[in-house]
């Protein structure tokens, strides 16, 4: 079940990256978090409520995030972590998550919370959930990890 949900989130990320012109995307294997979530200095966390309770966490390098936000801003150069950059990368995660929860199987209703952005080196995540799976999406500009952390009833 969790793997199927994660595939939807990862597939939506891949589709969005393709739309933004970030090519050579390869969706990764679904693994436990420890082996893949350690790289990347930027996290965007979105809470999931109602039928699925937990979080979806996007982890990527600031370089890849700048490429994504540059594309979202119509090709404007993005070289610094300013408010517009932070807003745009949060909106990227918000749009991906909104599209993904809308694509979940009929009958599963999930709301998302506003995004939380965390920036820093050597970040450690403790999602506080009992079911966690990560998908690593490779791009020509670095990778992006999608972590789905769910509380089972």
């Amino acid at each position, binding site marked *: 079940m969790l793997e199927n949900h994660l595939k939807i989130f990862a597939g939506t990320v891949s589709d969005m990256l393709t739309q933004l012109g970030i090519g050579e995307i390869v969706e990764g294997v679904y693994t436990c978090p420890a082996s893949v979530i350690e790289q990347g200095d930027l996290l965007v966390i979105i809470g999931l409520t109602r039928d699925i309770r937990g979080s979806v966490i996007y982890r990527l390098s600031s370089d890849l995030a700048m490429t994504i936000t540059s594309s979202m801003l119509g090709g404007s150069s993005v070289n610094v972590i300013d*408010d*517009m950059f932070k*807003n745009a990368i*949060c909106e990227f995660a*918000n749009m991906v998550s909104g599209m993904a929860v809308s694509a979940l199987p009929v009958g599963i*209703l999930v*709301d998302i919370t*506003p995004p939380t952005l965390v920036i820093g080196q050597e970040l450690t995540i403790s999602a506080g959930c009992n079911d966690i799976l990560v998908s690593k999406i490779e791009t020509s500009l670095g990778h992006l990890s999608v972590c789905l952390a769910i509380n089972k009833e």
Partner: protein
Amino acid sequence: MKVMIVDDSQFIHMAVKSALVPAGYEICGTFNNGAEAVEAYANLKPDLLIMDVTMPVMDGITAARKILSDFPDAKIMMLTAMGREDLVLEAKEIGIKAYKTKPFKANELIAVVDGLFLSCKN
């Protein structure tokens, strides 16, 4: 035509402005959550309110209910990443005139807004 934008993302404020201003629309105010929208609506009386669903403090559906209870003719369009069918239905039931999912292209947004004003005129 005066348009008010309500979204917790400054990026969306900018994207909507960039799409609508060249098409001849005036942005009369930008706000970050539903509570701010409810407070500002009476003063600004926009021709169209474009609002997100998921926002801190007060979500867009709750804000739309409050605004429509005081101003039943208010034109409200939801602009959200959430394309869930139940949300679209709920929005229609409370009197929201249009629903557009993110991400959007400028020409798509203009088409929905133009269509909304056209349908209300007819």
